């Protein structure tokens, strides 16, 4: 029925039902096979939409498919699905060099994109070993990693926007050319959702400059464990290699036999350590790596002499699985991930398990991430061999979970790990995952039977009928015009659960930490009860070897900072030594610190959370592994949700060794400077800074902070941090860049104070100031700053960082009038035209319409997800202000 109708609609060339065509789409890079009902080759987005609509109408199922290289069975039909082949939607639609973004169809092959970009001096960071064939859509769907994600992060860290066709065929646009849209973090949810929530039809990605210099060091060790230990040592030393890959003897031999890539054959394990950075800055780091390797018993050391030698090494690494296939064409690739310090133990355990099960195993690992890919060779024709392979795999996963690891770091759950998911996700967690899935795909159209296991959709609620104990609390800020309802602080965890089960103050509840960021809360409605949760958990557990910290959300940001500093570490999610509020407040708001340009926002550093759901159930997602694609990426998704979905109890954050050096530059742009030219030169520069902020003030003395901003006119603040030689080199090169543009550069004192300068203190509500948040892509900054300086009077300060949301504060001595509201409207329109976003955080309460976050595209998604969490009606969330319609 459905297939016939589709054939009539789209034609027989687009919808193929020949048996041989269907058989050609019965498999992916995994071992299993199936048979779809038809294979559809959509020519454009419209075709995709029709297929989804038809599937909804007739109850069909659809498997989107890129290149079919995933290793979890994600694209293998289970029976009678439509396979939707997206390879023809492969247009590179735009390379926007001023904003450093690109837009492309989902079928574009990763390496083909890299080819276009390289000609222009850019790259897209995700580089799965399959990059020469896998598609961007597949990379997003699996949240693919790759050798270089150690330094640069995985796919979710590099996408800015997506066009997604929801399971019913409706198109939504999420994200855009700037970061931090005032809605949930949809990119976090869709990246790694394995095609279960929507079909990605357009990808807006981040461009980063190609490194100037690359140093590839090949190290050989007499044992696997020594190599594993060297990995932790290198990272602990503050060297952040671009890649740190490990392979064992068997793998190396297979590679050498197939490709003669240049690896030593007489060692038990090899590490590829690749460093990249500005020209001339790698020598010392290279030496440091060599020293550390020697200290850990390295018996072989060679630096790749040239591009060719490096390419040969990498080609060996990328082809490693397949080279092993020459020994036995059937293999199963495991994707176990452990906290980094357990890598040596895990490697040993893999060998032991293989020996005791009598299977042949080869070890390959993205060692820097603790991500192991043990490859088990087996013979599918021999049931005993298959059984042993399965048993060994199960034991490896069990062991890895026991060590605090996860079942998949980058390959996904697919069909293969549906059962194994329960090793890391309990019944509650699975129920929530399943509810989210059903909320977006009620008819089960997309990728049924894979990704997320079926699970009873009812979230169990807190069993106890206990009356919550809590004390009345006071808010640390007063927001003129806003009258909250009751404000309480639950006394203990059980009380919080009871509150979340609806036994506390009357809903809707507004959850906050200490309340210091309340003024910024996007959904303040009159009379809502406020629950402060800062008193519950303020523990701090630093795992120095793994470079993670697990902290209670009640801990204050300052305290956490200090604890980390004591141990010689820092977390880029924390804005600075003197940031206000609690960790919970920081994560709930998701607001980025000054170093976002290089290090991303808090969401980029969270790898695990423990939270209480509406109903009072406690759940855990993620863990301590830096890579984890088991289930939806809820730890990230919950960041920036303003307590509207769940209460965060603890969070695990990635850390970095404390930087050795800081430096800062300040540039006053002379009038007439083409800002476009500045961005063009700066963004693509391999020595670009780690923090960039464009400031425009009218030169007055700020009434709130008391700071004086010197003469007017736009200026750029740049911050650098890292190893001494690296910071020095980059700082100097940036000075040269501006000198060439004939612009004077001033050095700023380094240290975190620079960070404080970059993240200027916000004015406080009630001070008579008005505060707006806005994000403007570099290409629009010139227009926005010009508008502000020409149209605003009084005292104002506009700060626009790259990579995060900025702010505008404004004060009129004469008080606020209607025509100023019109001005703000004009500015908001301008920002939107520049592809940014704008919202007023506070100002005259009468302008509250303008305070509301405009609900555009994803409103439907917001509602669905709130329902899935059971949060609608209980927790204040998107759209609530409107429903309450105070006054």
């Amino acid at each position, binding site marked *: 029925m459905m297939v016939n109708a589709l054939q009539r609609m789209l034609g027989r060339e687009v919808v193929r039902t*020949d*048996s*041989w*065509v269907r*058989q*050609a*789409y*019965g*498999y*992916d*890079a*995994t*071992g299993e096979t199936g048979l779809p009902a038809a294979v559809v*080759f959509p020519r454009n987005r419209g075709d995709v939409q029709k297929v989804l609509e038809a599937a909804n109408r007739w109850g069909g199922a659809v498997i989107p498919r890129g*290149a*079919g*290289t995933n290793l979890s069975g994600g694209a293998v039909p289970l029976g009678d699905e439509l396979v939707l*082949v997206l*390879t*023809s939607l*492969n247009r590179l639609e735009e390379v926007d060099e001023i904003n450093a973004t690109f837009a492309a169809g989902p*079928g574009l*092959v990763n*390496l083909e994109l890299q*080819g276009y970009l390289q000609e222009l001096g850019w790259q897209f960071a995700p580089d799965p070993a*399959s990059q*020469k*064939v896998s598609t961007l859509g597949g990379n997003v769907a699996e949240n693919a990693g790759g050798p270089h994600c150690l330094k640069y992060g995985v796919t979710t860290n590099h996408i800015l926007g997506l066009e997604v066709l929801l399971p019913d065929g409706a198109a939504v646009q999420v994200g855009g050319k700037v970061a931090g849209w005032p809605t949930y973090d949809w990119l976090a949810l869709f990246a790694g959702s394995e095609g279960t929530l929507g079909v990605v039809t357009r990808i807006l990605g981040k461009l980063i400059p190609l490194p100037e210099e690359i140093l590839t060091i090949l190290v050989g060790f007499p044992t696997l464990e020594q190599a594993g230990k060297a990995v932790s040592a290198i990272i602990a030393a503050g060297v952040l290699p671009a890649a740190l890959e490990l392979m064992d003897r068997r793998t190396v031999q297979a590679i050498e036999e*197939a*490709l003669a890539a240049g690896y030593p054959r007489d060692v038990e394990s090899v590490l590829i350590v690749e460093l990249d950075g500005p020209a001339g800055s790698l020598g010392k780091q290279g030496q440091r790596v060599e020293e550390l390797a020697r200290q850990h018993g390295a018996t072989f050391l060679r630096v790749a002499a040239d591009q060719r030698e490096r390419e040969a090494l990498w080609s060996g690494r990328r*082809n490693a*699985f*397949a*080279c092993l*296939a*020459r020994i036995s*064409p*059937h*293999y199963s690739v495991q994707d176990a991930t452990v906290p980094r310090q357990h890598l040596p133990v895990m490697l040993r355990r893999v060998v032991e398990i293989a020996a005791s099960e009598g299977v042949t195993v080869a070890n390959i690992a993205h060692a820097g991430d603790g991500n192991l890919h043990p490859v088990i060779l087996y013979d599918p024709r021999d049931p005993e061999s298959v059984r042993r392979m399965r048993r060994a795999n199960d034991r490896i996963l069990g062991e890895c979970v026991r060590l605090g690891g996860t079942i998949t770091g980058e390959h996904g759950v697919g069909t293969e790990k549906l059962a194994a998911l329960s090793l890391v996700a309990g019944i509650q967690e699975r129920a929530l995952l399943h509810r989210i899935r059903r909320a977006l795909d009620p008819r089960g159209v997309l990728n049924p039977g894979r990704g997320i296991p079926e699970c009873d959709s009812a979230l169990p609620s807190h069993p106890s009928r206990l009356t919550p104990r809590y004390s009345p609390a006071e808010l640390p800020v007063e927001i003129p015009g806003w009258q909250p309802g009751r404000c309480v602080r639950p006394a203990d965890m059980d009380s919080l659960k009871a509150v979340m089960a609806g036994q506390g103050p009357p809903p809707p509840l507004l959850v906050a930490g200490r309340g210091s960021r309340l003024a910024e809360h996007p959904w303040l409605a009159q009379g809502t009860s406020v629950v402060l949760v800062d008193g519950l958990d303020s523990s701090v557990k630093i795992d120095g070897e793994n470079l993670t910290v697990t902290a209670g959300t009640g801990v204050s940001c300052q305290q956490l900072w200090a604890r980390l500093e004591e141990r010689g570490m820092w977390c880029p999610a924390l804005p600075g030594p003197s940031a206000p509020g609690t960790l919970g407040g920081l994560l709930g708001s998701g607001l980025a610190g000054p170093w976002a340009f290089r290090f991303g926002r808090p969401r980029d550093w969270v790898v695990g959370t423990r939270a209480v759901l509406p109903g009072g159930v406690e759940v855990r997602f993620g863990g301590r592994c830096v890579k984890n694609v088991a289930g939806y990426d809820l730890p990230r998704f919950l960041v920036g949700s303003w307590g509207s979905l769940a209460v965060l109890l603890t969070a695990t954050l990635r850390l970095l060794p404390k930087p050795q050096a800081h430096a800062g530059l300040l540039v006053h742009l002379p009038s007439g400077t083409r800002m476009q030219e500045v961005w063009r030169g700066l963004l693509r520069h391999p020595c670009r800074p780690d923090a960039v902020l464009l400031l425009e003030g009218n030169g007055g003395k700020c009434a709130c902070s008391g700071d004086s901003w010197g003469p007017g006119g736009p200026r750029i603040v740049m911050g650098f941090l890292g190893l001494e030689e690296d910071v020095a080199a980059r700082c100097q090169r940036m000075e040269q860049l501006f000198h060439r543009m004939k612009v004077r550069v001033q050095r700023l004192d380094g240290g975190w104070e620079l960070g404080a300068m970059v993240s200027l203190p916000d004015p406080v509500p009630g001070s008579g100031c008005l505060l707006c948040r806005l994000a403007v892509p570099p290409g629009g900054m010139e227009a926005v700053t010009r508008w502000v300086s020409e149209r605003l009077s009084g005292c104002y300060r506009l700060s626009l960082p790259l990579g995060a949301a900025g702010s505008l504060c404004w004060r009129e001595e004469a008080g606020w009038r209607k025509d100023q509201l019109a001005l703000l409207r004009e500015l908001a329109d301008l920002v939107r035209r520049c592809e940014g976003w704008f919202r007023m955080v506070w100002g005259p309460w009468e302008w509250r319409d303008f305070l509301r976050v405009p609900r555009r595209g994803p409103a439907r998604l917001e509602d669905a997800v709130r329902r899935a969490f059971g949060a609608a009606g209980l927790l204040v969330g998107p759209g609530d202000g409107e429903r309450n319609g105070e006054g």
Partner: protein
Amino acid sequence: MGRETVKADLSREVFGCNRCGFCMAGCPVYRVTGREWDAARGRVALLRLWVDGHLSLDELHETISTCLLCLGCLPHCPAGVRLDRVITLARQGRLEAGRRSWWQQVMFRGLLTSPHLLRWAGRVAPLMTGAGRRLLSIGAARRLLSGLARGIQLLPPRLGPAARSALLKRRTSSPQFYYFLGCASDLVFPGVVRATVRLLEQLGFQVVLSPRQVCCGLPAWAFGDQEAARRQALANMRALSELDIPVLSDCSSCTSTLRHYPDLWPQGTPERARAEAFASRVLELVSFLHQFRDRFRGSGSRKGAVTYHDPCHLSRYLQVREEPRALLRQLGGWEFREAAEADACCGGAGSYAVTQPDLSDRILERKIDALLRTGADVVATVCPACLMQLGYGLRRRGARMRAVHLVELLTRAATFP
């Protein structure tokens, strides 16, 4: 050979495939279609299903016939699956099932196996194409005879007299090389033939064309007609063994085929031994000329920029990639520019342009795009089939770039004491 042996051979060839999909990276057909069955992984998977009895070769007609045999997949395939063998075996399986068309019969068993007919073809070809062009200027005929139309479009606007007769008339006292005359060089690029022979003579080598030489056998081999290919191979080995001298050709496909004659027979057969001895006498022209590279430095005055297209048979079947580039890089007056995907098949692939005109066009478009992006004035290559296809692609775009045989550039640059 029976069907079962074909199946057994095939299943040995595809045994190593583990479905990693990396072959897609090198497949020109997959690159333009994005369809699984156009890349090696899909072809192999489907043929496995034939071997296991789940699909018939008739059903698999498309996947069997759209392969270019370009081996673009091979360098990407860590398991070393050889699609040339896989696909020719499948085509052989089809022939054995009686799926043979009349024109294949005429070509492989008749025309291409007979020196006389080949000479006659040389005489009538220019007349035929002239007549063909006139016929095809009638729209209706063009639609009816689309394959023929595509074939004729491929040819350069003017066909000169074929090279064979003229070459045979030359008298050489003590030749040092057999010149192996490829059919396309003979009929379509007699100028290339003259340039090659002259260049070799200027280097001091006498060459001779054997009057009994026939087609190298590649077309028959590629179509799965191993029997016909063997016959042609035997005829050539006989014809080119009268003198114990090396063999040279300006056509990379011919050279590669001659070199691979041993593969036509199983290990241990006397024919194979003979073919091995013969193959060792076959030299590759570019590597041979590379030894005399000092003679081809040419003059310094700027002539333009040149890029290079790797013929599949040269770069992957014979593993010659660096020598032609080295020669071009040192060519005085020419600036060498590497093109993207320079070693990707141009979509000519013998009769592919005629049997799969649509795919061939799309593959060619991508090729021409990449060539034009270099901004070069000339693209050099070493195979008349590529020359035809590239020439056609460039003409159709109205591009300024010209396609030439490497030898033509060398001849112009050559200096001799």
